[in-house]
């Protein structure tokens, strides 16, 4: 009799297990200096500086501005001369302040070191400006079945026996305030080393949070193309950056790969561009 009672008791203990509400615990996050900077041949260096924010923090216009870094000491050196850059407003970018150079200009083949000092931290990055590659021809072609939408096509010859990395950006006159990277803007010569290449370029989105459905250029657009050569570290950054933008929020994607950086003690990119400029009108 007692045995049976005990058995029932054991059974009911299981029944009385408690319910628990799930909640997340997030550790304290240490903000880092984020560099979004570039230098081209014949042009002054341009750098946008921000701080990284904790993931769950909600951001509005007030707090977003708090993340722009405007009190850092920014300097660029080519190995011989160093120039401290000055902060200038620029509405075309986020944040709307840019550190620019006024005396040191980029030169093909040279290395440039960027140093950002802020709150006792020194973030350093080095990049090179590779030799620009010229395009043999470029044209606009309508996409199949479309009567006013199409892509830009370019044809160029890759330099053999050398690893080449490319990045393309376009600016549509009267529409874009600055050059916007194409959709899939980064190329490496894995599949076309030393060969003549023909590729089509898709129009890029301005920002990831404001995706438009259009990858097409329209008939009537006047498009400026910036065809650039970049070094390996820059390519690794832009390639991983692009993957992150595409996969972020997608539950099928893996998060094993991180956005790379060529910045020590910071995040982001300091990129040297060997650029060639072209223009095409979509007809």
């Amino acid at each position, binding site marked *: 009799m007692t045995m049976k009672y005990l058995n029932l008791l054991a*059974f009911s203990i*299981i029944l009385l297990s408690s319910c*628990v509400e799930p909640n997340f615990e997030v550790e304290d996050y240490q903000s880092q200096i984020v560099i979004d900077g570039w230098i081209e041949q014949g042009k002054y260096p341009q750098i946008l500086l921000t701080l990284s924010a904790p993931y769950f923090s909600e*951001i509005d216009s007030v707090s977003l501005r708090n993340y722009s870094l405007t009190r850092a000491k920014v300097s660029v050196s080519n190995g011989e001369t160093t120039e401290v850059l000055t902060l200038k407003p620029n509405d075309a970018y986020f944040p709307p302040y840019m550190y620019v150079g006024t005396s040191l200009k980029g030169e093909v083949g040279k290395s440039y070191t960027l140093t950002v000092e802020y709150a006792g931290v020194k973030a350093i990055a080095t990049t090179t400006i590779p030799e620009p590659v010229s395009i043999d021809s470029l044209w606009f072609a309508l996409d199949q079945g479309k009567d006013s939408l199409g892509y830009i096509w370019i044809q160029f010859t890759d330099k053999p026996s050398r690893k080449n990395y490319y990045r393309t950006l376009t600016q549509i006159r009267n529409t874009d305030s600055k050059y916007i990277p194409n959709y899939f803007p980064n190329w490496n010569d894995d599949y076309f080393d030393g060969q003549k290449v023909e590729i089509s370029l898709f129009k890029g989105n301005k920002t990831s949070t404001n995706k438009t459905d259009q990858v097409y250029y329209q008939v009537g657009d006047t498009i400026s193309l910036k065809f650039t050569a970049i070094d390996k570290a820059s390519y690794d950054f832009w390639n991983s950056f692009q993957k992150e*933008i595409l996969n972020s929020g997608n*539950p*099928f994607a893996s998060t094993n790969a991180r956005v790379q950086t060529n910045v020590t003690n910071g995040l982001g990119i300091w990129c040297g561009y060997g650029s060639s400029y072209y223009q095409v009108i979509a007809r």
Partner: protein
Amino acid sequence: MKSEFLHRIFVLFFLVTLGIGMLHSQNSYLLTGKVLDAATREPLMNAAILVTPLQIGTISDASGKFELQLPKGQMELQVSFLGYKAVKENINLTKNLSITILLQPNVVEMEGVTISSEKPDQNVTSIQSGTVQLDAKEIAQLPTLMGEPDLINSFRTLPGVQGVGEGNPGLYVRGGDAGQNLMLLDQMPLYNPSHLLGFFPVFSTDIIQNAKLIKGAIPANYGGKTSSVMDISMKEGDFYRFSGNGSVGILSSDLTIETPTQKGKGSLVISGRRTYLEGIKSLSDLIISDSKNFFNQTNYYFYDASLKWVYVLTPKTRLTIATFGGQDKYSLTDGEFEVTNQMDWINWVGSVGIKHTFNENLTANFTSGFSQYQFGIDAGFEAYQFHLFSGVRDYYHRLDFTQKLNHGMLLKYGASFTRHQLTPSKVTGEVEEVSINNINRYYSNEGSIYFQGDVKASENLSLSAGIRPTYYQHVGPYSHYTRDASGLLTDSLTYAENELIEDFFSLDPNLSCVYLLNPQASVKASASLSHQFIHLASVGTVSLPTDIWMPSTQFIKPQKVGLATVGYFRNFLDNQFETSFELYYKYLDNQIDFLNGLLDNFDNTKIEQNIVHGVGQAFGAEIFIKKQYGPLTGWMSYTLSRTLRKFDNINNGYWYPAKYDRVHDFSVTMNYQLNDRWNLSALWVYATGNAMTLPAGRYIIQGNVVNDYTDVNSFRMPAYHRLDLSATRQLKKKEHWESDLVLSVYNVYNRANPYFIYFRVKGDIDHYYLSVNPRQISLFPILPAITLNFKFY
């Protein structure tokens, strides 16, 4: 001329063998028999058969059968089995004889007895630690999920065996991943069998005779997987009587029919099962509000069927044909987040086998079969659309011998050959009007021979040792690009059909021993090294059964796993309680992972060029307590363990927890026979939450938001725990008809166990607004069900 000569040799050989056979049989005859439960006609395994006064004995096998070579004359047969009344039969052996022994259950002695297929002291005396065996009766008493006993889910309640939670039926055995388990149904390998994301049992238990799980050193007769073996035997029909059973529930129904095909010579078991979601939907509507109701947006059905035919060609030879197959179709739409998802899975296995008994000491089995698994996904997420097909097809032949030698030594040896055809992925997709088309297909051959011997070294020490050499080849058709050190393309190679591309040779040794301290306690230890040539690679962070099978190639090396275990085993109260404490350590080499995920194939690289290699370590302590007899039976298990991985390209080369690293894993299951009409059962599981990588911070580059991730898998999802209850009521027995009603509730306190967590970024940099919302999706809320089980004969 040559063929005529050979033909003559063959006929001569045949005649000689026949002659010897005839000579031999003049003085002794073969007694074969079958021991069955008198009421259900179910075979009784490990029944003891003793022939007096000769004092020759044996035990019945998994189908209740036994064989004895006995001298001509009068003798008495004593057949006994725990929980049944012993039977004595007089026989006069003048020729080969076949008998059937029916045993009546011993109702008076014990109430609600659980008939175990193991010897009562198996826990202490068996050589292989880490082996658990369940027979049909035990399986039927397992906690029922939605009214159906679930074999694979029940394995999860054992120490060292963990599940991921819902959504993925994979088992993680002692730190091994879901792809390291060899699941065999009548020796046919099953690759990814599951129904409704692990919610429904893989097979109806009505077709299962018994099931064995090996999580320690794997004996050499099994090969190909490095963490565990689930050896499941399909039920053989009764050779004399027709019967059937089935169940009808609000979610699914199944029916199994057993019939002799030629009385005394053959039997056929046919089974089929189908589910209908309408039941889930209408039930869930009553309980869950629309916005939280996962089932409102889902559509699902599955069916499976099996067939097993056994035919006795001669008293010493039997033929078996078996097949099992099923399909799942599932679709989900989440309008709010623009997610659409359609998936389907197909499993199909089949085999033909011949078993020949040379004498009471030697049997041989030759089997040929195939195994096919494939799944397809059609998914859409905002502007991404992608279609993924993945499949495996195996053809195999195997020859196995079991031989008993002097002094109780048992020897198993044989050979097997498998031809693998894998299509890990066929991805086609559109991402904003850019299309991708990427097909990867591989062919390989895997051949092994093996030797395994069990020997009693002394009164207290028994050993089992074995070796399994394997030769594996990756063959064409296949093509790939080769690159030099700086990454420049230098060559592209194409291989013709069956042309050798890469080969590997492996040797798998294993050693287990048990030392009896006394009849109630023992110490067991084991060590083994095993290799695996077909790997399961995880796609994405979401726990969907979408992982793909990859072969070993010149880029993907065979996995190598070393395992060592030591444990103390003790029974109490005359074997009423079984307890064990075991420690294990596992080192895993050549583990694979995707660096960038499957969607990275935009540039048409081969999958294997996206794979990275690393190592793993797993170690843990397992505690197990089981009550075997009495109205209240059940078991409790607790595992404390870590599973870690280290890859050069991931987490900066530091050790990080595996996705399925569950530090604490606890479960308790109870079955209570209240009276002769009511039976209650309960299951409570608790496990540490899955590890995942969480973005710690955010930053902005070129107006785009980028995630700054913490260390890999450093975030823990909330813990998983759940209570299931069920009650079974026996209904009135009629002539030729029995039935019972099962009331079951899954997730009794309705805990929203997280299935996956992802983050939605909303906002617009230009307008200076950004917000991040974590979204936790849970799969199964509280789910009650009613099922009617019936049996006719």
